Each structure stands twice: as structure tokens, then as C-alpha cells.
């Protein structure tokens, strides 16, 4: 992989639901080790971008390519193998955690490594325990999700994604469903992952957090990328009127 080749490049992504054009034409380049914050008003298409990258939605048009993989062109016939090749490069952390309620914390984490990646159960368990220790949940390994707080569940959700060792971690508003006092513990984990150079795309409304951890902020509105760049530039000194209004609204809601 040449140093200039991005880990992920998406060009001209389009997606409509019925008559609503959610993504008009999205370009996105993400370098290895980069943390990208995807911000914008609700309905701007941020989550849909994330879901397209993970194969949870199939774009109507555009191209998605991971380094070392094929450039998958959407709009025509996309083979199952192609779309799966995309899916396996990334893992999603969901807004509502989506843990498997009938499995313990440990079982949630090793399910993918053991059932899909065919790793030895023993190794997968050792890895899971190490990761759980890192997010401070070692003693919760045999609990069922319903016994955990939202913040704990989301940390398990993050570990479940990490356990697959994906090239790219996708966070879909990871703290939006949390009580305010639990947001910090999840953001701390994400910040640590950033320091460890995990490549991440984070859809978030936490602008202060975005400014702190992101290398790049992408501001979306109405299905297009309005502007992108360094967090200080986009969030403190936006070039575009739409960005300015959005940032103002979040900073001064009343």
C-alpha cells in the first residue's frame, strides 16, 4: 500500500429512499489511522453514509474501495462477494448498542471471531477478556446485557466491533441513546482508540468531542458534503454559511 493511497475512498455515493434523495453525491477519503467526525443536522444523510460503507444499505450509485480490495461500483449489478468484501473491512457500533440479549457479554464479543472468522474459542476468549479489561468491564463478562447500564452496553458494543479487528470502525451516534452522565465513559474509550491509531468514522452531535479527537470534520447537509477539513477550521471558523448556522445552533440552542 502506497502511503498516499487512502484506506477508504468513496466517490459519488447516491442513495434514495422512495422519492427522498438522502445522499446526492458523497465523496469521502479516509486515511489509515485517521479519525473522521461526520456532523450535520438530522436527516442530512450522515448515518446513511455510514450504513453504506458497512453494507447495511446498498447505494444506488457511486464507488467504494478499500485499499488492497476491489473498487465496488454500485448502481449496476453488484455481486454478493463484492458487497461482502466491503462489509468485512469495517464494523459498526450502533446508537442503540444492538447487543444480543440472549448472550452474555463474553458470548456477544466472541460470536463474530468464533462463528464467522473461525478462530479458536480459547484465543477469542483471551482476546475478549483483554479488551473487556481495557474498557473496565472485566468483571461483567458473564452478565447478560440487561444487567448493564447503557454506557456499559455501549462499551461492550465497541469491544464487539474491536474483536473483529476491522480496518475501519464506524460509530453511529454512539452516545445519543445514553443518559448524560454516561456519555463520558464511552467517549473516553473512543478517545483512547484514537490515540491507538484506529481508523474511525464517527457520526456525532458532540462537537466538543469531535474537535478534540477528530483529525478531520466532515459537515453534511441535505445529502451533500458542505465542507470538510481540520476540526478547528470547520467548527470554529466555517467557510460556509450552512456550517456556521449549524455550529451556532448546537453551541447556543436557546
Amino acid at each position, binding site marked *: 500500500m502506497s502511503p498516499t493511497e487512502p484506506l477508504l475512498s468513496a466517490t459519488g455515493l447516491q442513495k434514495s429512499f422512495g422519492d427522498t434523495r438522502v445522499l446526492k453525491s458523497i465523496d469521502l477519503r479516509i486515511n489509515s489511522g485517521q479519525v473522521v467526525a461526520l456532523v450535520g443536522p438530522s436527516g442530512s444523510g450522515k448515518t446513511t453514509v455510514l450504513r453504506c460503507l*458497512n453494507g447495511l444499505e446498498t447505494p444506488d450509485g457511486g464507488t467504494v474501495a478499500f485499499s488492497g480490495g476491489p473498487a465496488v461500483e454500485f448502481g449496476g449489478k453488484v455481486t454478493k462477494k463484492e458487497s461482502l468484501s466491503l*462489509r468485512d473491512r469495517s464494523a459498526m457500533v450502533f446508537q442503540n448498542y444492538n447487543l444480543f*440479549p*440472549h448472550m452474555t457479554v463474553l458470548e456477544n464479543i466472541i*460470536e*463474530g471471531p468464533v*462463528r464467522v472468522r473461525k478462530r479458536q474459542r480459547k484465543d477469542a476468549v483471551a482476546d475478549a477478556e483483554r479488551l473487556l479489561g481495557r474498557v473496565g468491564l472485566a468483571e461483567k463478562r458473564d452478565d*447478560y446485557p440487561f444487567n448493564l447500564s447503557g454506557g456499559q452496553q455501549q462499551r461492550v458494543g465497541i469491544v464487539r466491533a474491536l474483536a473483529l479487528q476491522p480496518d475501519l470502525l464506524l460509530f453511529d451516534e454512539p452516545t445519543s441513546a445514553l443518559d448524560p452522565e454516561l456519555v463520558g465513559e464511552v467517549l473516553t474509550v473512543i478517545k483512547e482508540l484514537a490515540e491507538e491509531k484506529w481508523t474511525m468514522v464517527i457520526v456525532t452531535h458532540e462537537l466538543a468531542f469531535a474537535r478534540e479527537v477528530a483529525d478531520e470534520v466532515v459537515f453534511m447537509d441535505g445529502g451533500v458534503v458542505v465542507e470538510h477539513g481540520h476540526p478547528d477550521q470547520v467548527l470554529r471558523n466555517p467557510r460556509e454559511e450552512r456550517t456556521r448556522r449549524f455550529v451556532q445552533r448546537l453551541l447556543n440552542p436557546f
Partner: protein
Amino acid sequence: MDWDLLRTSFWPMLSGGLTGTIPLSLASFAIGLALALVVALMRISGKAVLSGIARFYVSVIRGTPLLVQLFVIFYGLPSIGLTIDPWPSAIIAFSLNVAGYAAEILRAAILSVPKGQWEAGHTIGMSRALTLRRVILPQAARVSVPPLSNTFISLVKDTSLASLILVTELFREAQQIAAFSQQFMMLYLEAAAIYWVFCLVLSSGQSALEKRLDRYVAH
């Protein structure tokens, strides 16, 4: 009260239950449930032809009497050259019947599992089939135990209809002894009591199963 007859008739009836009613119920329920899963998956497949076939099947099964279904298979099919013995006829009829009802239960149970669970399966690399087996069905099972238990209990009682196609089971024993002794009231109440006990056992089995499947849900 003819205590002697009560005693001597009890064993043939119980043995009819143990060697007829129960195996017939278990076999039909197992086959019916497997078939029901296929029908339910066809129904929610999103493929017009498959879901149409499934819908038609459920409609026919639920819209016609079980006794008629049983007679079509045992007395009807021979006239087009297909003769099936009483036991297999009964198992076929009951399985097909259970499948019609259980398919709707399973369909609703599968649809009751939040969409996010499918997505979580997807994101950790699972195929749809693996997600169904490992993630969706275990959760659907919890929801479907009470209605499926109803179906099973109905089935146990409905197997008495097999007496009409010469299957030796609990009720056929009762009928034969009653015809011989003319003690209809006592013998049919005795049969009813044995069915009732069978169903009580099933109900307690249902409670135990529900408890087990509820262990991961907040109370």
C-alpha cells in the same frame, strides 16, 4: 360405579395414550414445527411467489376442518391410487395441520425481533442464515413458547380424531371398551381425565421452558 371396570379399563387406555397419543403428538409436532419454519421463512422472504405459496398453504390448512384433512389423506387418497397406513396418515395430517398454525406463530415471533439484531449480525460478518440461527431464532423462541404450547396442547387432544382412521390410541381404546361394556359415561370421563393429566404435564413443561428462556430478560 363399576370400580372393577374402571381399573381394568385404565391400563389399556393409559397404554393407548403412551403408545398412541403421545408418540403421535410428539412426531407430528416435531415435523410440523420444522415445516412451519420453512413456511414462515417463505412468508417473510419478500419473494412474491414463495410468500404467495406460504399464504395459500396457511389459508387452506386453517380454513378446513382437521377431520376433513385426515379423511382426505386416509380415505381420499386411495381413490387416486395412493394408499397410506393409518399411522403415517395420521402423522402426515397432524404435521401439515400443526405447520399451518405454527407458521403464523413463528412468522410473528421472527418479526418481533428488532431489526437492529439483524444489523448487528451483519456487522460482525454473519450471513443471513447464520444470523437467523444464532441471533433471531433464539429470541423468537422466547416469544413463541406460549402460543406454540397452545398449539401442542390442542394437538394432543386432536389426536383423538385418529381413532376415526383406526389408529390405536387413547380414545380408540376408550371407545372399544365402552362399546363392549356400554358404560359410556364413566369410560369417556376416564379418557377425558387421562387427556387432562397429559395436558397438565405439558403446561408445567411450558412454564419451565418459559422460565429458562426468560433468564436473559429483565424482570
